[in-house]
């Protein structure tokens, strides 16, 4: 017991005396929290639009003006030449181009079929899709109003049935991407502290040779690993709690579910990550190697975890791979508990899986830690 206590004390002394590590532990997560959610944002805030008007009638003018009323669209007005308009799309000056044909008003008044061409720059497919949708919505809205105002020109049966789609986004009512990204960052933070910092710490002892000096003492390897784990486990929990505070204070996201339960599952997840960190450090010769392995795993974990893209859209093999990805289970837990306020029943599978992973990874870490080399 005395042995483990002095190992923990030693680790904390070293952490607090390492200015670089301290700033990584405190400043980096804060900065990440403050910057990342604002960048990783799928919301379309601005759409640049321009028009080609071959008709030049009152109706087309009205439609064009109706875009001015929108918060999202920035109108670049009417372009005379189609070539110029295409160039603008190529140069990324406009996202959407709306083209009214000849005799648009006339055909409309006569009740004949007429077409509006909507061209979108699909380099960013999300933006193009959303842009075309918004454009259709505005034009459709205008047409509906127009038809209602001009009942005389259309017979009863020509009026399309009024169908209003209204969206309600559950658990994220404003469809605010921050609500998804911020808890995701919390996951990344805990993962980084757990895996990265511990892997680098142990490998550094290898590099400066202190591990040999410790290995010639009668201390047992599990004692050594526990003495290493507890300090970083505490640090990880402190980081997580700090993250929860930032989430509340800066982004106004309150944990919907039970906080003690969230802390409990985070503690288990941290154990998985700590064990993984130690495993990596025992197979690495130096900090550089350890860093590459962590980075490699980390990117796979993040991409598969469903933080940036929904897991539902992934191919089957990705789903299977995800069964090995502790981060995806933990991400599920965070989403469910933080946003939905789920009770333990709905996260118990994830908790069990993470616990099993913790046992396996840590056993592997202890076994792979060589106190004697061959």
């Amino acid at each position, binding site marked *: 017991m005395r042995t483990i206590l*002095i190992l923990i004390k*030693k680790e904390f002394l070293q952490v607090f005396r390492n200015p670089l590590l301290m700033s990584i532990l405190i400043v980096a997560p804060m900065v990440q929290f403050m910057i990342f959610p604002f960048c990783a944002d799928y919301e379309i805030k601005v759409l640049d639009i321009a028009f080609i008007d071959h008709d030049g009638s009152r109706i087309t003018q009205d439609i064009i003006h109706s875009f001015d009323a929108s918060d999202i669209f920035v109108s670049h007005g009417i372009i005379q030449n189609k070539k110029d308009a295409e160039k603008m799309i190529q140069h990324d000056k406009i996202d959407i181009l709306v083209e009214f044909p000849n005799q648009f008003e006339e055909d409309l008044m006569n009740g004949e079929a007429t077409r509006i061409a909507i061209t979108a720059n699909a380099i960013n497919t999300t933006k193009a899709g959303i842009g075309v949708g918004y454009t259709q919505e505005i034009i459709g809205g205008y047409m509906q109003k127009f038809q209602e105002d001009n009942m005389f020109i259309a017979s009863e049966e020509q009026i399309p049935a009024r169908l209003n789609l209204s969206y309600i986004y559950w658990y994220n009512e404003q469809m605010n991407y921050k609500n998804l990204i911020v808890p995701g960052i919390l996951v990344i933070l805990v993962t980084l502290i757990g895996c990265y910092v511990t892997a680098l710490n142990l490998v550094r002892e290898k590099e400066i040779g*202190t591990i040999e000096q410790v290995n010639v003492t009668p201390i047992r390897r599990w004692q050594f690993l526990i003495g290493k784990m507890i300090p970083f486990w505490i640090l990880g929990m402190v980081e997580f709690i700090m993250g929860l505070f930032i989430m509340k204070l800066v982004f106004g996201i309150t944990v919907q579910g039970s906080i003690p339960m969230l802390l409990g599952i985070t503690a288990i997840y941290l154990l998985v990550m700590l064990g993984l960190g130690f495993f990596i450090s025992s197979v690495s010769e130096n900090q550089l190697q350890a860093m590459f392995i962590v980075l490699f795993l980390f990117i796979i974990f993040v991409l598969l975890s469903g933080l940036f893209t929904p897991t539902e859209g992934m191919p089957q093999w990705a789903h299977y791979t995800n069964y090995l990805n502790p981060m995806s289970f933990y991400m599920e837990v965070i989403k469910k508990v933080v946003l939905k306020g789920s009770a333990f029943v709905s996260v118990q599978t994830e908790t069990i899986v993470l616990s099993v992973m913790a046992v396996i990874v840590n056993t592997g870490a202890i076994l792979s830690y060589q106190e004697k080399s061959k």
Partner: protein
Amino acid sequence: MAALTIQKVNKVYNKTVHALQDITFEIQEGELFGLVGPDGAGKSTLFNILTTLLLPDSGDIQILGMDLINDYKQVRQEIGYLPGTFSLYPDLSVKENLDFFAVMYKSDIEANMDLIRPIWRQIEPFSKRKAGKLSGGMKQKLALCCALIHRPKILFLDEPTTGVDPVSRKEFWEILQTIRTQGITVLVSTPYMDEATLCDRIALIQNGKILGIDTPEAIIEHFKGTLYTFKSANIFSLLEALKRCPLQCNYYPYGEHCHIAFYEDMETAMPQFLQFLEDNQQEHGDIEPIRPSIEDCFIEIVKMNRHE
């Protein structure tokens, strides 16, 4: 009684590098034993094996009546190890390092203070300083304190004086002598031949083989040739010329002198040698007979081994 018995220990790295070949020797209790050899001779490999950090490929090692390989846990409690490179925590203070290793060995600083006091007294004024900020000599003394804090029965020191200034080296060897008086068996390795004479017995090691084991005096006693030293204006041209020397001799630069060991009857050989130098237009200072040093002996033994 033998504190350490090593029998036929072999270690091969990567299936090609034969780091240790049939190493066999004994160290008596209370002995100050020196392992002398150039870089790459296998000294550190042997130390890593003896300190339970590395497993030998074959061979048997008995340490204080225990089997080194099977009873390594008990062995660790009884040995102290000072590695070749400074490997204490540079970001912990002097005192914190000592405390840390005392607990690691389940030992008590106060109880063993009498053993380390002579060394500790010198570093105590810096006890709050970070170990990484100490001077080289001070680091070494701290490392020694940490290696002795559990009162080991055998102390292993891997090149403790490599890269240390002459004054600190001398001081360090004085400390080793006092440690020995406490009944601790000491095994020390060094590339410096002059330090070898300070040991009770030495083993000469090269290319993973023990070339000879004896007291320094006996090793010098067994020098086979007749050794002379002289100065030359141009050592390089002298050495070139000596390649053509018909006499049975072994020559090498030694500091600013040239040492030459003859394996001939000197009454007839010396005039021949002088004639040879004259014929080859080599200017030289007085050629004086000299008592061989350990280094001379080492060179001779290496040479003889090569011829065998």
